[in-house]
């Protein structure tokens, strides 16, 4: 139950008998075996009708829509099988209690810094000299303990990420100049990779959160937003180094992505359709990778780690048992 299907072509998806069928513009028909699907990702211009939505709902499958330039533009989620008023009440209470909120926010940032650091150490042990960045990240981790307000926590997160992003220019080959994070729109190849990758991680977390009856709009690190699923932003931070960044390093260094996979227009630089296909295929493979989970005593996929993270937060909110954010342990 954890396959994601990415659809890049234009056309129409429809229910056909007991499965989902994609009809492309040149009338090519493809069938998606949906029994094992977790979510569909629509990247092209796709038509669908209410019959399809009801069918996906019956099978508990989410549909994430990406619009112009592949920005995340929304999700059609299955009606929640189980809602839990109590969960939402506890979620809000934790948000309203300043001490409780900052504790959760700090824990999320502690996890993100840990996971960034683990990427830095990896390359530090492979011929790069990143010890000063490691020191910077450790300093950020220390500063975190002294924060007294959520915007200070945010500030520490930002400076940690700035220090961390320095490794991109060193790890990636010439032709992939990064020079700091920019978005809306991304101004170079690396930024467009990060934007695309992060939006896929984000959509995956939206699915994971909705499987738990947590409300995706009530968050602790980010301010609850009007439009965005800000809880997904909170949790996505933990997984970006493991998912987005590793996939970028792998694809670019193995030359599976080259300068030809990007197109520049005006001030923006974006992945081409084939570049997006390469990226999402690699990300899907990464999500299927497994790791031995010491507490659960079994192998779990990276994708399932997202679900586990939602369980952990929910359990913390409902039982008061401590929440420890995901920190890469292998």
């Amino acid at each position, binding site marked *: 139950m954890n396959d994601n299907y990415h659809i890049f072509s234009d056309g129409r998806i429809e229910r056909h008998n007991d499965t989902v069928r994609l009809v492309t513009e040149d009338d090519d028909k493809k069938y998606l075996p949906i029994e094992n699907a977790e979510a569909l990702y629509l990247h092209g211009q796709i038509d669908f009708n209410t019959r399809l939505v009801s069918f996906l709902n019956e099978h508990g499958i989410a549909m994430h829509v990406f619009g112009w330039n592949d920005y995340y533009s929304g999700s059609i989620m299955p009606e929640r099988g*189980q809602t*839990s008023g*109590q*969960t939402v009440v506890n979620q809000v209470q934790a948000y309203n209690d300043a001490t409780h909120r900052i504790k959760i926010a700090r824990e999320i940032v502690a996890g993100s810094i840990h996971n960034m650091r683990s990427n830095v150490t990896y390359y530090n042990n492979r011929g790069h000299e990143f010890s000063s960045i490691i020191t910077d990240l450790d300093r950020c981790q220390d500063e975190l303990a002294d924060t007294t307000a959520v915007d200070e926590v945010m500030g520490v997160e930002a400076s940690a990420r700035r220090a961390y992003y320095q490794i991109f220019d060193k790890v990636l080959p010439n032709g992939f100049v990064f020079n700091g994070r920019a978005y809306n729109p991304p101004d170079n190849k690396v930024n467009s990779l990060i934007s695309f990758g992060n939006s896929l991680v984000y959509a995956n977390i939206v699915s994971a959160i909705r499987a738990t009856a947590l409300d995706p709009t009530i968050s602790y690190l980010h301010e609850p937003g009007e439009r965005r699923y800000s809880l997904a932003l909170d949790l996505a931070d933990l997984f970006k180094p493991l998912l987005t960044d590793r996939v970028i390093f792998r694809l670019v260094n193995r030359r599976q992505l080259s300068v030809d996979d990007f197109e520049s227009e005006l001030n923006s630089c974006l992945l081409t359709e084939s570049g997006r296909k390469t990226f999402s295929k690699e990300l899907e493979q990464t999500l299927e990778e497994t790791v031995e989970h010491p507490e*659960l005593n079994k192998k779990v996929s990276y994708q399932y780690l997202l679900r586990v993270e939602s369980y*952990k937060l929910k359990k913390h909110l409902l*039982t*008061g*048992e401590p929440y420890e954010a995901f920190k890469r342990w292998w």
Partner: protein
Amino acid sequence: MAERDIDPVELLLESARSEAANASFHVTGVMMQYYEACERELWFESRNIEINRENPNVVRGTRVDDTAYGDQRQNLSIDGWIAPDMLDDGRIVEVKPSSSLIEPARLQLLYYLWYLDRVVGVKKDGVLAHPTERKRESVELNEEAIDKVESAIRGIYEIVRNDSPPSATEKSYCDSCAYHDFCWSC
């Protein structure tokens, strides 16, 4: 809570007999079962913390329950709180996919018999069935069983009114529980 001094058994009977929809203390058959199997699971159930329905054991249990004795039994939904199944011969039946957790199933069935007796006013006999193992066992509500049910009601009351669940303790059947990943992820 104002009810603190009342015996939970009396409180439950009062709630069951009361017309008011929001009367205060109810125990379902599933809660009885969880009380015997895992008090933490009982607390989760009382807070509507949903289980992972993709769990293979949940799927299997539901399927066995849906298919066994389909033509010989009917479901009695009583007060919206308990829903025992009755066989054509008038006995109350509880169907379980395996006999590995027999005590929880027995307590659940005894509770139905107790409830029918004390609240509805009909005396029934019970049968515990494991169709996949071709096993059946008769269950009756004697003095000892009544004590067991009533002390379980008191125990459930204590657990459910706590703000936090009993902490996780490892049991032989944790691995197959639908809450496994919820309990043991930290």
